[in-house]
């Protein structure tokens, strides 16, 4: 589904990603872990298409298409969703209006007619119920005045509405208490299907108690230095990132 080959990315002439290789297949959940400042969020942003980076080399293929050629909104319509670490507020724009616009623009890209209003509203209700999201959340403006936990839940809600093929969750667990964390994790688990995939970026192993990954990668200094099963995350939790550094020094 997603193939990244030797991706090298810089910002302000500083190389952040220094040769990333990653292969994500349908049905898989990947976890990317690593200390702060190693390029985890950069990787997520580059896949989504944020235009503040310089691509120095390599390629990113999504279902055979060269993602690096596509603008952000087309990547989204191709089925890529990014759960933001810091979702922005859009005052005055209701969640309902925002979601309907997003959904229908994606449908348009895929050659589909806009979703009829009643069908759309029914879908909103269904997803809210599934994720145990209170009705008032969708009556408010996008993320405006939301608590940190509400913002993250809202990201999961949007993911449920848009039904992406590949969802990248960028530190969705940061700043969440345990209850919110469970809601977020349950949401992801409920949305898992054989034909979609998740890349979960996290600093802590805690989230992985609830979202069980198939493969864990450790990103360090712009490179994936270790990949393994979920046990790798536990080992990392136990020994700390110093262990990785020591391993690299040898």
């Amino acid at each position: 589904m997603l193939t990244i080959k030797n991706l090298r990315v810089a910002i302000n002439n500083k190389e952040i990603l220094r040769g990333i290789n990653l292969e994500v297949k349908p049905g898989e959940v990947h976890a990317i872990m690593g200390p702060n400042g190693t390029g985890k969020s950069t990787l997520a942003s580059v896949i989504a298409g944020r235009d503040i980076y310089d691509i120095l080399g390599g390629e990113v293929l999504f279902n055979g298409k060269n993602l690096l050629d596509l603008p952000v909104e087309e990547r989204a319509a191709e089925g890529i969703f990014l759960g933001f670490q810091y979702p922005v507020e859009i005052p005055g724009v209701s969640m309902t209006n925002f979601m309907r616009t997003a959904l229908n623009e994606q449908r348009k890209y895929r050659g589909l007619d806009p979703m009829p209003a009643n069908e759309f509203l029914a879908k909103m209700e269904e997803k809210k119920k599934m994720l145990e999201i209170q009705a008032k959340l969708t009556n408010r403006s996008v993320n405006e005045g939301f608590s940190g936990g509400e913002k993250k839940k809202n990201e999961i809600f949007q993911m449920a509405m848009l039904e992406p093929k590949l969802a990248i969750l960028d530190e969705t667990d940061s700043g969440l208490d345990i209850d919110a964390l469970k809601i977020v994790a349950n949401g992801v688990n409920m949305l898992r299907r054989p034909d979609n995939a998740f890349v979960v970026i996290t600093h802590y192993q805690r989230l992985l108690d609830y979202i069980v990954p198939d493969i864990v990668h450790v990103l360090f200094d712009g490179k994936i230095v270790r990949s393994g099963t979920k046990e790798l995350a536990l080992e990392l939790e136990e020994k700390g990132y110093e262990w990785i550094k020591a391993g690299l020094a040898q």
Partner: protein
Amino acid sequence: MDQEPKNIIDEVTQSEYKYGFFTDIEMDTAPKGLNEDIIRLISTKKNEPDWLLQYRLDAYSKWTRMTEPTWAHLHHPPIDYQDIIYYAAPKPKKELSSLDEVDPELLSTFNKLGISLEEQKRLSGVAVDAVIDSVSVKTTFSATLEKKGILFCSFSEAVQKYPDLVKQYLGSVVPSDDNYFAALNSAVFTDGSFCYIPKGVRCPVELSTYFRINAANTGQFERTLIIGDEGSYVSYMEGCTAPMRDENQLHAAIVEIIALKDAEVKYSTVQNWYPGNKQGEGGIYNFVTKRGICKGNNSKISWTQVETGSAITWKYPSVILMGDNSIGEFYSVAVTNNYQQADTGSKMIHLGKNTRSTIISKGISAGHSNNSYRGLVKMTKRAENGRNFSQCDSLLLGDKCGAHTWPYIKTENKSSIVEHEATTSKISDDQLYYCNQRGISTESAIGLIVNGYAREVLKQLPMEFAVEAQKLLSVSLEGSVG
């Protein structure tokens, strides 16, 4: 990923005015220039009573002694008032009794605007007084309204049919020497709309007038008079769009509203006149005096405007709060793009006790445009316990436009409270990126964000207008980004 602001801003300037077309209708036109003879000609053409001619001549004489105001934050080449045609009327082929008899050219113009009279009549139940240039061609629904005692007709017709009402109220809110442009209008106004709602009557439909400026070199001087008698209610809508033109066209309208005891008048405008081309050439010069007076106790006047057109907008819909407990409201969205200039705002003059006013102004500037809010809130000595809340927000798209705010507050008593809030913001790259990531294109995202920003004002509009206004905001800013 070539969404560099510069490219996208360039794109804005390439989006042409979507309502640029011109209807070819035979005109009955006065020679260029302004003098007493022209005024007499207008008055004669309209078969006016002598008092009205004298009113015009008096205004003209005052105007000749006045000078054009220069205090607004507006720049334009000098206007040659002698190079303007002050009277032009479309010649109807014969007396019109049904739509079938309306000039097909005219109907097609309305069709292009998407506001065909048939449609209006059939679907929306809105009575339309369609003004093409200076003479009302067709008035619909007046018969139905008349059953309720509501008078809704062209101004000229009102002069003939209800001269006493016109004489009583004309110039009572905006005196003929109120300002330079008001004096000009008082001298040369050709037509407009008249509306009277009798005591205790609630007008069952939104009254609507579509204005068009339709002849080369013809200034348009509309005159609107709305009287809400005691305990009445009316919602009045004015909307317009004009054909593409190279020359500048002067427009100096006057709208006067009188709300008597317990009356409520709601006046909504969507203004989309030709703003000029992307180099800032052409476009309408719009110098308008709009003022209402809450004359009786417990009366209410509410102005809502969505301003997206005109090269120059000079407009301060105001309310004089004379009756005790009266309420004045002003809700405004003003969009400027390319080289448009807008100097707009409101005046709330509190005279009565316990009077309340609200000003919500949302300015949106893009391109090389300049958007200014100018407002006055005045609490006189008598206006005990007066309250005002003003909020003036500016949204900037791009880095070549300007937003300015000039709020004036004068209070002469200690019991009144005046609050003023102001913000300036830009659409952030983060907001656009967030929308893009959900699959929303940058253009749609700007439409969403701008409409969200203006929501407080848009929700004040009557439903059928709100939809139109939302589209207009998106179209006016097509492709622009901050």
